[in-house]
């Protein structure tokens, strides 16, 4: 397999959750996830937040609504 090209580009920023952050969120939502599994989730959650950062930085959301948001219902 070749390198993942999904690296952040200039202007993109992503958050990487700490274990404490995930532990707090999981507790607040009533999830019973052991620390070892939360530690493993850090990279997966970071990847999702990374994807969200890419969309925020590259999609012109300020004007994209002109395409018509009725399809989003």
């Amino acid at each position, binding site marked *: *397999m*070749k*390198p*993942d*090209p*999904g690296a952040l580009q200039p202007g993109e920023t992503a958050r990487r*959750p700490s274990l404490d952050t*995930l532990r707090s*969120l*999981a507790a607040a*939502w*009533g*999830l*019973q*996830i052991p620390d070892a*599994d939360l530690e*493993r*989730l850090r990279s*997966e*959650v970071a*990847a*999702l*937040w990374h*994807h*969200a950062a*890419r*969309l*925020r930085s*590259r*999609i*012109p*959301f300020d004007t*994209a*609504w002109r*395409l*018509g*948001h009725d*399809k*989003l219902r």
Partner: protein
Amino acid sequence: MTTGGLAFLPATEIAARVSSGAVSTVDVTEAVLTRAQAINSTINAFITLLPTLALAQARRVDALVHKGADPGPLAGVPVAIKDLADIAGVPTTSGGQAAFHHTPDATAPVVQRLIDAGAVIVGKTNLHEFAYGVTNINPHFGPVRNPWDRSRIPGGSSGGSAAALAAGLAAGALGTDTGGSIRIPAALCGIVGLKPTYGVVPVGGITPLSWTLDHAGPMATTVRDAAVMFAVMAGQRQLPVPPGDLDGLTVGVPRAFFWERLDDEVASLGDTALDALRDRGATVRDVDVHHADLAGSAVAIIISAEATSIHDARLRLSRAAFGDDVRVRLERGFFVPATDYLQALRAREFLTRSFETSLVPVDALVMPTTGAVASPIGGEESTPSERSLAMSIELTRMTNPFNLTGLPALSVPCGFTRDGLPVGLQIVGRRHDEATVLRVGEAYQAAAEWYLRRPPLEPTQPTRPTQPPA
């Protein structure tokens, strides 16, 4: 007629022979079931074989033929159903742990349409747990093995359906596709798979994964069979799939993103396929799909949030009942903010417009279905869960944009590597234009004839060539 003779007949050929009375559905069904009982243990394609149900359906089709009634376009065709779809009275496992199985009272509408068209349901096929992965290394039912090399994955999540077809254990199959789960195993097992336009084939009675990305569609050994199955599954009249050339048709090649990061042999076979399309009369030209690289980001967020929503209760009650990789995928979805999910849905509208714009000057887009061939099931450097998570990113890269946009996409066999592993060519069309996608696929298949190759499951099989036949 021998079991082996019936095993690899195309669905349309079986239907023609059954309808004409040249062969009985019971004979076809018994031949396929006998072969499945002999071979399934080597590839683990089926979770459940259904001989009693199948033979009852076969006798019904034969009775129609004897009465002179129309038995339907799939008369006597042995069809395998991914074990994500309900059949009344038959347990649906969804590839999950026993606690999550259910026995439905009703048959999924898409399965019922197949039965009403004369198909015979021979069994329910193995899959990646809850269809949430591409390796088909299932912790509850064991891995499906690729018939072309049983040390390798078949791709997934409809890997059991693809393996069954490649091994001659069915002539058609139902698959589902949320990020590539029909097309990836089709490519890696050397068969045909069609993900139709979003919403055209009903998904009721099929365990959902991500409702805005989920599709159901046909898997087959020939494009013509896939076309007939698609029409039945969609409740449409049969699509014309004219044999012949592609004169007047323009095929777009999105070089950026879709033709990048390919294994060398995949790229070479893809280029050869473009030459074949030119030879069949198509105009082949490069096109740009702006922001194509963002589609995977939107898919990752949408599928994570929606799948976790679907499995929320199961996850909170029995998280230990899930396999490691699926549990990780499901639990990560709890950490997707609502705003990120909604931005991904908004991004979908923007990206769909971009993909549709790229299809304005051309009739179809073509690209390899996957950038790599089937990976080994085992591995010393990582766990199955780690490999599953990594492979999902890699193998869905060129398929999941069409789940996001809902555009129809077909995978057809595109050749074999020097190691004898299949490669797929993906053909993408405009919304609701399955006819053009199938036309291109049919013309390419007629030129290349890769579908005639058989995996080395029996000692009498000939050695496969590594180049297209002359």
